[in-house]
């Protein structure tokens, strides 16, 4: 059974200190970059030891899910601090002030796939176009449809570059899709956006939902053009998925990234088996329900070991 992480990983205590010091001008940008690089390398080593099929770089220098794109894409400036869904964490709301476009900026700073990784393949994690649109303030596009379409095309250009750089799997994080209860019209727009994103990319793709009940939207998203759908089973009941013909892979979000309680192998095995038996998807892979960055790093490392153990146990 496959298994991998879903995005941002918590910073080490050393990187916490370095970033704090840098914010006060006590550490140089080069020293901070070296601290980031050490954390990325350590995370890659942890993942390869855990024998995950796809490695992520942990987004360790991303200040939030959208922040790199205020630099990488045109037409976006930073707004105020805003609560990140139902968490005690905050992001800066992107303000769409002009047409959004990827104009070829270097992606190396925010997507790192150059480290040795013992043959594991690289997964890039990006914001999904719907969540990006909903969580932004739009002052440039006359309709929501135009905004989500522009974001989809821009993200498509970004992942096309990332594919050339070596990424083989693209995961789009879409917490809003099960948190905001999109209308039927919006769901149609989201579907079209994913057709733009996925068409001709020639890589594996996933739409990862979290922070909400995917059962409420599964009717619609099951037909989207990604290969996989990630589901947060701390917010979604298995029963709400059983009536559907699941021809995709399910990312089984069964390791809770928002609680430090360590999952037992027995509980995970039962849950994964139940998803396999009751939902009968094309395949199941094991993931945390969302980014492990909500945990202190010491706990996140333990949860990565639990993920590895679950992969082996269920297989």
């Amino acid at each position, binding site marked *: 059974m496959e298994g991998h992480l879903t995005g941002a990983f918590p*910073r080490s205590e050393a990187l916490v200190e370095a970033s704090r010091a840098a914010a006060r001008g006590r550490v140089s940008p080069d020293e901070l970059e070296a601290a980031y690089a050490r954390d990325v390398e350590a995370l890659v080593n942890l993942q390869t030891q855990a024998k995950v099929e796809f490695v992520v770089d942990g987004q360790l220098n991303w200040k939030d899910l959208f922040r790199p794109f205020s630099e990488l894409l045109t037409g976006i400036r930073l707004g105020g601090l805003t609560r990140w869904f139902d968490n005690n964490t*905050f992001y800066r709301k992107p303000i769409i002030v002009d047409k959004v476009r990827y104009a070829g900026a270097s992606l190396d700073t925010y997507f790192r796939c150059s480290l040795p990784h013992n043959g594991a393949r690289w997964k890039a994690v990006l914001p999904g176009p719907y969540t990006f649109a909903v969580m932004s303030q739009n002052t440039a596009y006359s309709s929501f449809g135009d905004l989500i379409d522009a974001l989809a095309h821009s993200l498509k250009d970004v992942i096309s570059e990332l594919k050339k750089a070596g990424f083989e799997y693209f995961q789009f994080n879409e917490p809003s899709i099960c948190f905001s209860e999109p209308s039927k019209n919006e769901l149609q727009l989201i579907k079209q956006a994913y057709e733009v994103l996925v068409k001709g990319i020639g890589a594996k793709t996933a739409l990862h939902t979290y922070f909400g009940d995917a059962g409420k939207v599964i009717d619609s998203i099951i037909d989207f053009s990604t290969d996989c759908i990630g589901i947060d089973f701390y917010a979604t009941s298995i029963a709400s998925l059983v009536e559907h013909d699941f021809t995709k892979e399910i990312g089984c979000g069964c390791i809770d990234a928002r609680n*430090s309680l360590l999952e037992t192998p027995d509980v995970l095995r039962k849950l994964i088996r139940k998803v396999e038996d009751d939902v009968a998807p094309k395949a199941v892979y094991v993931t945390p329900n969302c980014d492990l960055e909500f945990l202190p790093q*010491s706990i996140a490392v333990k949860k990565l070991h639990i993920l590895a153990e679950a992969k082996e146990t269920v297989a």
Partner: protein
Amino acid sequence: MRDHTNKLFPVQEIGSLPKPPWLISYLRGRAVEKPELEHLAKWSKISGFEAEKDIRAVLSQPKTAETEKRIRNFASLFAIRFLESAGLDYVYDGEANRIEMYEHPIRHSEGFEFYGHVRSFDDRYYRKAACVRKVGFRDAYHLDEFTYAKQAAKRKIKVPVTGPYTLAEWSFNEFYQRRLADDYHDLSKLKSEAKRELVLDIATQIIRPNLQALVDAGAEWIQIDEPAVTTKPGEIPFFVEAFNESTAGLSCKFSVHICYSDYRVLYPDILELKKCSQLALEFANRDDDTAAAYAQLQLLNEFEDEREVGLGVADVHVDDVEEPSLICGRIKYAVKTLGDPKRIYVNPDCGLRTRSWDIAYSKLSNIAEGAEMARREIS
């Protein structure tokens, strides 16, 4: 309960002030530098602080348990005089003796362990604790500071206390989720019920004994701080139940401070808060336009909620200082919306710990002046 001062628009603080730089240096064992002593001298003069010489004497001594206690008390007194001289009617000590509003109560209670930092935003982090055992009372963690503030203050006292829902929401929940694991197959239901048990145990085992200790020591007004209450709207009934369990039967005025939220999600549940006399709410941050910023005051009318309002009239996240005329206008808008001016207290949106002492003082002084302008116009 109406205001003891018998005047309209009493001015209150909400909680925290920045920590004085000389306090931080001394507690960290560093030499207190000249600029820090200048800070002490400047604000002693402005606020009429009477113990500058005593503080300097302590600062010149090596740190011991005795000097640490003395310097912390002086920091409390320093904050009290600062707030009094800015013109506030209700004061406290700027939370000078607390680490901050979450870590302080958690470190003084049973059942929690800290594992490390989690990020709040950008390069800001906080230490998040996990509840690993049944929670319990260890000590009355605000009693000493209250006792000191009560004898030192020349104005009325209001004590801010972090509420049970916020303490639970900002912690990991291991013990209660593990305890209930066999009872629930649905993980979302398991998390929800485990959360409810944690919130209620914090209320009954930690907060209530702390409130009881403060009331027994003479506290007349306690503000329950619940900034996390709207994080998960489905859990607002947990907050209501916990508040009522914490305060039942205690003879004291209670209020709730909530901020940076859509207040609509609080209703109708918060009508069931039995001993809450006042909602102290953030508004000024929302919009430069008064009608837009204070639109949610209408919720009180809509739900026939007749409690007092602590009206946030100054944004604590920007250095721009609101003019008294602007504050006066905001108060008059609230009077126009709510009708009864006696229901309105005025305050900053939230604690001022992220502002400089200069900005904090200017904001508070202008709030007091704006309230006086409104008083003259409406009396």
